[in-house]
């Protein structure tokens, strides 16, 4: 440390003397060292020296690092003209270090620029020793490239101001090469690759703070060689050696350049599990090798690589391209894996037995056929049963290395329950025959031997596989186990040895499929009772929900019946059903166990629409059924029947009561509803002789024909006539007797509002009846008829009326129509007697009835000789068109007998 300081001062002294010689152009302050490169993390000491002036001393100096004044604690006064400072080197960025002087005098103030000096501090790290140097020269064409490539690992940090560079050195015997780089790899081009020559390679890291070399690689130049892989690899398969393949190849480079050693690896086609031939077998300069102990009839992929034969020198080449070859077929080893599927035949004491088999594990070729022999235990002696049956199979050209062995159906037999057979099977390929496999099928009662099943069979699923665990049957020596799994009509199996109590199913199991897994213990060839369990590799949500197939509606409840989801769509074990039902926006749910297929929803509202659906759940999810809508009943069961019966009984009661009432009040009713109307025919008025002769012009005013009406007031007839005119259109529909009851003259004015309707609804008779209906009234004074003069007591008069369809009024009103309808009128007149009794038959408007009654009336009236003469006169009158003439005459002649017969009642 001391010599360094002395040296520094010496340099300063020299510098100072030199500056003095230079005159006043120089600063009065000088820092040493100038432009230093500093290692980050160390301390740096700089010294500021006062030269060529006595104006200031060291105590007037101070230091600035960039813009910050350095604390005077870090200063060291060397002498009156020198001040040093020690600062830590921090950060990678370069900085300025200034030495300033306080302005202690005017000279200093005026020459400020001469009393300052600065140096730039460049910071960096020392280079780290490169590590992991490795170099490689690859093969180009038939020689090794003259370019050698080296890679190393950088160590340590590098700053921007002090970058670290690397120089790669390659030293041959007598020649040196080098190349500089900033990275961690470099290439050196040699004139030729120096085979069999020693070579030394190293890399040097260097920057302004120092340099350091990596470890030297002093090796034979061939140690850096990486050749191409062997070419032209040929694999030869020889029929006589089914477990062997011969490999030939060509050296990638001439022996004079490099002596190589080889490595061989092979695997079955499709597999990535390589088998490496031990190096001791191939660690020679060889061009062929025979692979042995291979599986017959298996496609192998073979690769070869090489390197410098000298141990520890050179790099392994890449692996050659694949060379593929199938080994020849060999005799099958092992025996076929024989199994059976027994199905019970309903209704018959037989079993259906299907024999299936897998190829021997080491089929060593394509199995071309199986031979099967079924031997009945009771039928051993028969020669026929000893015959072998050939079952040819057509295998595809698959690789024998496939782990999944194909299942071959051999034969199906119907076996009586009491029969037991033994089955033998052998497999053949093109080379030979396998060992014999046999299987016992005991009779149905094999339980007598107590071929007990395994106990505690437990099955679990994880990792996409099914794991089984069981306990061996007690007191029985099991020779092996057969683990069988079946789903969707497909059965597969595997065999486990006698000591196995847990295994995994090795077949390709699908997710969401329900497998029935059975473990059959085999007792010296006799298959014991199986223990079975169902399982899924992985459960999912059902593909569809349960189907609602029925419902039984009630007023406040409904029973829903649904069908289970088909097995292939369950995709898991159903854990529960959830029934949802919704009324409006409110949804209710009920959970029921998985073994339920119907449920009654209660507490429903009557006469309400509900939407219901059922969700079936598994561990993997759930699926819902379609919406099922229903209306609850308005009435509960039996409610309607009760109402109907009640109403019926009530009605019956009313009817009975009415009937009883009618019976007991018969006379009253009769009197009220059917009052006795005196028969005009029996009237004594006909015999009555008026005091006043009948007015000659009265008939003109009165519109009656056929029947003579006792006219009370002449003017009344006119009024009626006028009214009829106004009410003509109404005649088309109904003819109101009130309006047309003027036939009795003033009686219409006094008549009661009771309407006497003369119905003639039938279309055909409308014209006949509507226009011709007229009421005939017989007015009977209580005191008897006294005359045709208006009575002083008209209101006390009792009148009886009769209705007629006589078209008299129309004829009067419309003489033209009368002419047209004259023929009709002429036909009606004969009916007139019919209407004389309409009081008794007013409901009967049927022309037929009317006609019948007319006839009856005629029969009745004829003996009475009721104006027989007028018939003819009336028939002829319309044709003559003199209504005014005949009308007065007719009533006069016809009415007279009536009057004579009328008697007050």
């Amino acid at each position: 440390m001391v010599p360094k300081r002395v040296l520094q001062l010496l340099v300063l002294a020299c510098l100072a003397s030199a500056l003095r010689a230079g005159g006043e152009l120089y600063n009065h302050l000088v820092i040493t060292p100038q432009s230093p490169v500093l290692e980050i993390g160390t301390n740096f000491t700089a010294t500021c020296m006062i030269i060529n002036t006595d104006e200031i001393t060291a105590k007037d100096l101070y230091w600035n690092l960039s813009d910050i004044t350095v604390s005077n604690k870090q200063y060291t006064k060397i002498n009156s003209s020198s001040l040093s400072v020690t600062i830590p080197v921090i950060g990678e960025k370069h900085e300025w270090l200034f030495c300033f002087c306080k302005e202690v005098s005017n000279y200093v103030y005026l020459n400020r620029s001469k009393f300052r000096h600065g140096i730039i501090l460049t910071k960096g790290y020392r280079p780290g020793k490169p590590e992991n140097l490795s170099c490689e020269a690859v093969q180009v064409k038939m020689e090794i490239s003259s370019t050698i490539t080296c890679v190393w690992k950088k160590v340590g940090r590098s700053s921007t101001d002090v970058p670290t560079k690397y120089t790669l050195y390659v030293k041959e015997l007598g020649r040196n090469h080098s190349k500089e780089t900033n990275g961690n790899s470099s290439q050196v081009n040699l004139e030729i690759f120096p085979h069999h020559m020693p070579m030394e390679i190293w890399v040097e890291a260097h920057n302004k703070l120092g340099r350091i070399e990596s470890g030297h690689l002093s090796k034979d130049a061939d140690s850096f060689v990486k050749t191409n892989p062997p070419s032209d690899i040929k694999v030869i398969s020889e029929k006589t050696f089914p477990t062997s393949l011969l490999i030939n190849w060509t050296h990638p480079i001439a022996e004079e350049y490099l002596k190589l050693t080889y490595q061989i690896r092979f695997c079955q086609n499709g597999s990535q599990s390589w088998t490496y031939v031990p190096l001791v077998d191939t660690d020679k300069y060889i061009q062929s090798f025979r692979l042995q102990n291979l599986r017959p009839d298996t496609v192998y992929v073979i690769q070869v690589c090489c390197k410098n034969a000298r141990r520890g020198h050179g790099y392994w080449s890449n692996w050659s391209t694949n060379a593929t070859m199938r080994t020849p077929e060999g005799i099958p080893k092992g025996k076929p894996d024989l199994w059976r599927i027994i199905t019970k035949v309903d209704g018959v004491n037989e079993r259906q037995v299907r024999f299936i088999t897998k190829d021997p594990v080491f089929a060593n070729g394509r199995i071309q056929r199986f031979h099967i022999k079924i031997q009945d235990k009771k039928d051993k002696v028969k020669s026929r049963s000893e015959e072998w049956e050939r079952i040819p199979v057509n295998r595809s050209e698959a690789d024998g290395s496939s782990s999944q062995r194909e299942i071959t159906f051999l034969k199906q037999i119907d076996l009586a329950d009491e029969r037991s057979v033994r089955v033998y099977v052998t497999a053949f390929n093109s080379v030979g025959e396998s060992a014999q496999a046999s299987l016992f099928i005991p009779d149905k009662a094999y339980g007598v031997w107590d071929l007990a099943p395994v106990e505690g069979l437990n099955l679990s699923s994880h990792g996409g596989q099914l794991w089984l665990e069981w306990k061996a049957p007690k007191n029985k020596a099991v020779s092996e186990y057969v683990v069988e799994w079946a789903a969707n009509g497909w059965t597969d199996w595997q065999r486990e040895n006698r000591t196995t109590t847990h295994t995994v199913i090795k077949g390709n199991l699908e997710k969401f499929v329900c497998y029935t897994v059975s473990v059959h213990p085999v007792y010296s060839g006799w298959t014991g009772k199986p223990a079975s369990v169902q399982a899924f590799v992985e459960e999912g949500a059902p593909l569809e929900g349960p189907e609602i197939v029925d419902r039984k509606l009630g007023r406040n409840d409904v029973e829903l019946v649904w069908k289970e989801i088909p097995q292939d769509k369950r995709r898991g074990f159903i854990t529960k059903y959830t029934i949802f039902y919704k009324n409006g926006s409110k949804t209710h749910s009920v959970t029921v166990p998985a073994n339920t297929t119907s449920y009654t929803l209660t507490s429903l509202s009557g006469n309400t629409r509900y939407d219901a659906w059922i969700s079936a759940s598994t561990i993997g999810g759930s699926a819902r059924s379609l919406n099922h809508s229903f209306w609850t009943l308005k009435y509960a069961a039996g409610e309607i029947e009760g109402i109907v019966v009640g109403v019926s009984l009530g009605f019956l009661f009313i009817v009975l009561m009415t009937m009883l009432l009618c019976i007991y009040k018969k006379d009253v009713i009769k009197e009220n509803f059917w009052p006795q109307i005196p028969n005009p025919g029996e009237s004594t008025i006909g015999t009555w002789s008026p005091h006043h002769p009948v007015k000659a012009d009265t008939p003109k005013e009165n519109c009656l024909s056929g029947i003579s009406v006792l006219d009370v007031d002449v003017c009344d007839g006119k009024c009626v006539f006028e009214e009829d005119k106004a009410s003509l259109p109404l005649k088309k529909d109904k003819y109101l007797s009130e309006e047309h009851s003027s036939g009795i003259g003033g009686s219409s004015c006094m008549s009661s509002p009771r309407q006497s309707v003369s119905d003639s609804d039938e279309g055909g008779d409308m014209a006949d009846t509507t226009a011709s209906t007229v009421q005939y009234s017989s007015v009977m004074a209580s005191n008897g008829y006294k005359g045709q003069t208006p009575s002083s007591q008209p209101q006390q008069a009792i009148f009886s009326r009769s209705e007629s369809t006589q078209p008299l009024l129309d004829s009067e009103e419309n003489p033209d129509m009368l002419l047209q309808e004259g023929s009709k009128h002429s036909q009606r007149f004969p009916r007139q007697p019919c209407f004389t009794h309409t009081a008794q038959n007013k409901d009967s408007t049927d022309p037929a009835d009317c006609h019948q009654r007319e006839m009856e009336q005629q029969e009745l009236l004829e003996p009475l000789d009721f104006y027989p003469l007028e018939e003819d006169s009336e028939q002829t009158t319309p044709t003559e068109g003199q209504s005014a003439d005949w009308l007065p005459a007719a009533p006069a002649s016809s009415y007279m007998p009536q009057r004579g017969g009328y008697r007050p009642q």
Partner: protein
Amino acid sequence: MCGFCLLKKFEKQCDYDESSQFACDTERRMNGHVKSMHFQQLMETAAALLSLLLVMAVDSTRTVAASRNQECGNSLQQTLKLTRLVQKESVDLIKTYKASQGEMAELFCKVTVADVPDPNISGLEPSERLASISIHLQAFFPHFKRVYEQQTDLQSPTSPLLAELTTVSTRSKNLATLINSFYQSLFPNLPVPEPAGGPTTLPPPQNVFQQKVYGCVVLKTYKELLANVSRELRTLKNKVCRRRIQINTLFL
């Protein structure tokens, strides 16, 4: 360290070691018979130790000799390999040369040309023969250079002949360097072999035909030299490396 020295040291231990002084005095005071018996036992132990040390020394010497022998063998083996490589390349070069010289190329090589180095190795001692190999190899360098120059005028720049000439020339230099190195490792006190007669004599300017003939003869002669070198090195392998073992054994 020898066994005898150990024995002496043990004797001295009685004189100088204070801790064992008492034991030594007691020993001296014992009667003569016992004293004699103890001494005999001591002598037997010392003899056994001496024998063991001798065996160990011989074994270590042999190990060193074997490693030196192996080193010698490796160097010679590498030299031999390089010789074979150059030999192979020279054979290929002659083929390429003949192919690139047009018709009558076979005839060129049958003509004798002066001023081509002798392919025969001279000397009686291995050192002399090794030196002779080195000198002969070096003697061919100017000739290769001359042939290269001549063929550069005759061939296109991309001709494989030129590349092969360069390769063989460079490889020959490597071989010469390797042999020199081997020579120096075997005979470190002998001077580095150099051509005795000064610079190699090159033929005067030639016409194209002469150039073709000259080139072929040079290559052919060189090939012969390499065959001789190869043979010589195989012989030297037995002589030089084995003799060193013998020398080492005798030295020890």
